């Protein structure tokens, strides 16, 4: 116990002397050095304490901001999903609008009304032969009715109905080898017969041998066609076949204007007396019309009726009448 008292007295004396020296000699170099050292050692406690306290104080607002951001994120994701759906719907409606606008520019022949139908099926084994459409006898589709499509805003011939079922119909494409359409060339106005090859090309035969032909000529259906109305685009000349000295005519290769692979809707002409339902197809869904695929649009006739197109290319020598309300339109 005495030793502890003695030691404590020594410690007391030492520390007291040191403290009094610090108190009484504050401006001397050793004291200033000691003070600077103490500040260097102990000031970080307050410095980092302040930073830590500030971080702790920032935690509740940070958590609140995080929660708000999470809620905003959920809300924005829902809005984004809605926006994406609306965008898809908008694309579909735009396509629908374009098709309907083009349909408005067409004047169906007397006694016929246009009927739009979805392309339901395309057989890979008969890619250039036929397609199945979603309209049949119930909707007023009749045998041999002409079928049209829209290719980049232009009315083009697709084929004719060869089989009619209750709610669907089989369309024989113009590229089928069993198809043949009376047509004429836009530059020379000579007529020939466009025949399918069951491939991506058509062949136009029976062109007079003395006529000068050139590639790029547009091929339109002739008014004399038994199936299609006149002035409907069929394709353009891709190549001129070499003349056969044993034949009295020449032929050209024609690239069809209707790309059957991109058609999603087609227009069929039906007699006006058929059922009035499904004149306009059901609204297109975004999945049914992926971006880039345009629905077809146009009008057509059967073997006899004529179609007047509001706007379009005018084949040489046979100007296409502009949109004129005809008797059919007024009579309806």
């Amino acid at each position, binding site marked *: *116990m005495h030793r*502890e008292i003695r*030691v*404590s007295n020594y*410690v*007391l004396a030492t*520390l*007291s002397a*040191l*403290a*009094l*020296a*610090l*108190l*009484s000699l*504050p401006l001397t170099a050793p*004291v200033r050095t000691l*003070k600077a050292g*103490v*500040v260097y050692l*102990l*000031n970080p*406690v*307050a410095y980092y*304490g*302040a930073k830590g*306290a500030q971080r702790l104080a920032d935690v509740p607002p940070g958590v609140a901001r995080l929660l708000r951001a999470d809620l905003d994120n959920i809300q924005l994701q829902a809005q984004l999903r809605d926006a994406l759906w609306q965008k898809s719907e908008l694309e579909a409606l735009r396509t629908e609008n374009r098709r309907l606008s083009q349909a408005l520019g067409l004047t169906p022949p007397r006694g016929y009304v246009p009927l739009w139908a979805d392309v339901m099926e395309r057989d890979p084994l008969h890619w250039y032969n036929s397609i199945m459409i979603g309209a049949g006898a119930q909707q007023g589709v009749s045998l041999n009715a002409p079928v049209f499509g829209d290719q980049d805003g232009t009315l083009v011939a697709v084929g004719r109905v060869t089989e009619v079922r209750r709610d669907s119909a089989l369309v024989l494409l113009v590229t089928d080898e069993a198809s043949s359409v009376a047509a004429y060339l836009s530059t020379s106005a000579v007529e020939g017969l466009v025949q399918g090859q069951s491939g991506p090309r058509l062949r136009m035969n029976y062109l007079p041998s003395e006529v000068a032909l050139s590639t790029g000529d547009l091929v339109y259906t002739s008014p004399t066609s038994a199936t299609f109305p006149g002035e409907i685009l069929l394709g353009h000349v891709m190549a001129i076949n070499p003349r056969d000295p044993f034949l009295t005519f020449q032929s050209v290769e024609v690239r069809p204007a209707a790309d059957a692979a991109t058609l999603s809707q087609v227009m069929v002409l039906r007699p006006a007396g058929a059922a009035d339902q499904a004149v306009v197809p059901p609204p297109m869904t975004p999945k049914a019309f992926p971006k880039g695929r345009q629905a077809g649009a146009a009008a057509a006739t059967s073997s006899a009726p004529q179609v007047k197109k509001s706007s379009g290319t005018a084949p040489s020598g046979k100007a296409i009448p502009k949109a004129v309300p005809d008797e059919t339109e007024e009579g309806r």
Partner: protein
Amino acid sequence: MSHLRGAVLFVAAALLQWWWSTRMSFWGLSPQILLVLIVAMSARLGPNSGMCYGFLWGLFLDILRPELFGGNAFALMLVGYGTGALRRQMDVLDVVSQYVIVFFMTWGYFLLYGLLGVVFAKQFLWVGWPAFLFDPFYNCFIVPLSALACAWLRVR
């Protein structure tokens, strides 16, 4: 008590004292946590440890205050010495005794610091009546905290 734990306690107590006096002080009142810890450690470890801790913690307080460099070190060192000296007179480990010691040591600390100001700064460094009257009670409230700290240091 390991040196590592002692160092951790030194830094943690200094930090807590600074944080409480700057962030949780209301009406100018904040507890003298370091003083209470010095009393508790002197009661358990004797005057030498109390004086050493008191001197170093006092230096820490001195660098936070502009008046006297060395004043807090001297005053808190005497608090440690006084508590250690009281071990021979009374049972300072008793809780009630610690309340009493803390209560009066707080007044002694304030008065001693003021008198040091008279000697070395030519003015009495008065802490103010609110602190002088209520800080002893405030300090008594945190005596259990010092017991927890000593238990963590495994000091009996």
